[in-house]
């Protein structure tokens, strides 16, 4: 485990992903360091979600290797893989809550599967998670179809965090939230990162999140990482898309 601390928590090497004849990711390399919040940006359709889904193992890759927690996901056996999956949480863009389970059951689903915990403790932890993501306890007995878009995001985050993972993938966590809610969300991610030593891989378009929540930013373009570094590095970059992104009207508004 000592080695894990120095090594990056996610190590992506020469990843190539192809759909038919379109090459979405082309020899991409990326490291995510332990304990950081990595913001992942890029133009729409550049393959941000595809990379996330490839790392999680939902999209097959043509070439390359992925290591998470020092485990190569291609050569790992089932129990190693399960161990990795138990230590990460994923927030999908649409929430992906189980529609026939209540909020409480949704959050408890991973706990039931992976932990041996009493029902009382599970209920209490569920309440704790709901409080953490800023929801009232009354929400627990509702079904996903009875929630607003922002609430679905929060419940999905609570579910992603239900096992206290070391690593979370957030796919556009603040989209569809009001600015105050989005700000709270950033704050929340920060708090959780500090308290739980969480590593966060966040796909986002929210400039506020990039400025306030992220330690490091990686930019995807043409199937590769075109830049990675701090927000200052991004602003200093001469890449045309980055210039537009970080010096456009909305960026100036955020910087004040």
């Amino acid at each position: 485990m000592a080695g894990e601390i120095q090594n990056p928590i996610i190590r992506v090497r020469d990843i190539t992903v192809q759909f038919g004849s379109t090459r979405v990711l082309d020899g991409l390399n990326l490291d995510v360091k332990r304990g950081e919040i990595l913001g992942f940006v890029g133009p729409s359709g550049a393959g941000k979600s595809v990379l996330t889904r490839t790392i999680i193992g939902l999209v097959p890759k043509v070439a390359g290797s992925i290591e998470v927690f020092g485990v190569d996901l291609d050569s790992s056996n089932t129990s190693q893989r399960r161990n990795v999956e138990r230590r990460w949480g994923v927030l999908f863009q649409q929430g992906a809550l189980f529609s026939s389970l209540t909020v409480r059951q949704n959050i408890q689903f991973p706990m039931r599967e992976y932990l041996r915990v009493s029902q009382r403790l599970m209920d209490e932890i569920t309440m704790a998670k709901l409080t953490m993501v800023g929801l009232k306890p009354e929400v627990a007995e509702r079904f996903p179809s009875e929630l607003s878009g922002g609430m679905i995001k929060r419940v999905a985050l609570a579910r992603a965090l239900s096992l206290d993972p070391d690593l979370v993938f957030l796919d556009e966590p603040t989209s569809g939230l009001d600015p105050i809610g989005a700000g709270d969300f950033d704050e929340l991610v920060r708090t959780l990162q500090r308290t739980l030593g969480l590593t966060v891989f966040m796909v986002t378009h929210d400039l506020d999140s990039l400025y306030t929540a992220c330690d490091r930013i990686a930019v995807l373009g043409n199937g590769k990482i075109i830049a990675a570094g701090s927000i200052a590095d991004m602003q200093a970059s001469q890449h045309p898309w980055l210039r537009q992104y970080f010096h456009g009207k909305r960026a100036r508004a955020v910087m004040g």
Partner: protein
Amino acid sequence: MTSDPKLERIAKGNALALCATGTWTASFAPVLERMVADAEKLAGGSQNIFIDVSEVAKLDTFGAWLIERLRRSLTHGAVEAQIAGLSANYSSLVDEVRRVRATPVVDAGTITITGMLEQIGRAVAGVAGTVAGLIDMLGAVLAAGGRVLIHPRSFRLTSTVHHMEQVCWRAVPIIVLITFLIGCIIAQQGIFHFRRFGADIFVVDMLGVLVLREIGVLLVAIMVAGRSGSAYTAELGSMKMREEIDALRTMGFDPIEVLVLPRMLALVLALPILAFLGAMAALYGGGLVAWLYGGVDPEAFLLRLRDAISIDHFIVGIVKAPVMAAVIGIVACVEGLAVQGSAESLGQHTTASVVKGIFFVIVMDGVFAIFFASIGM
């Protein structure tokens, strides 16, 4: 890095001090819960209560909550238990957990006899609702059909053709195969049993009448209910779930006209065609078995068939087809539009669509049997 968690009492006398050590994480939850439950009994009358957590190696939400649970249960009256030695890393987590309100009681919903009786009552009352829903949909479809007749340009030809392809053209292979096999089986069974009376040739009469009047259309209708009725329900249901139907409505379209009418029309046109093909396949299969197994050569089969059946038999069969198609379509669309937000609901309504569709098809067949018997056909 992980070490077994411990909770020890370190001071006696007036003050109660508990020292937590080791890894307080989810993996150790059962052990932690037991330790905390034991420690809760220690509260006694102590005036100062401390929980020292400075030696805790690792803490997550589960651990933090259990410490908080212990703190809450040790607190009595004016004496509030304190958490001491909290490292800066974990203080915000513990603060976060401190805000949590106690768990509201979840009503598990006990099963009672009155509850069961109530459910039966509601189910019976629901039957009337089902019938009303079907009549409602029939009316809506007819009204939409009327509007389309007045304004033919609003008719959705492309959609209708698309659904024709799905429910008619693509269904032909499986329908023909199954009815062919059924024809074979009827002929084989007929020959096998009629042979004992030396009445082999009458198998042709039985096959012709049975296939044209009943089996052809009934079997095909049941298969279409299973194949296309379920597809309609699932399509409309998932559109309902994703608010696509609401989107149509807000754009000023009538979902009945846009979604239901083309599907209904396709089904009403498809079923007679499929029933005809099915009947032909069954007759062919029966004829083949009669020839190969029963020794009735094709010429004799056709001659006998011409004597045995009249055009009436064919009409009786084929007239039922569009009516059954309408019943299947209406049931499928009503169920599809009744889907609620969850995947479970989609499954329930798709099941209901097929079950009710087949049930009403058989009921309709019975009604037709009485009707044709009365008019002497």
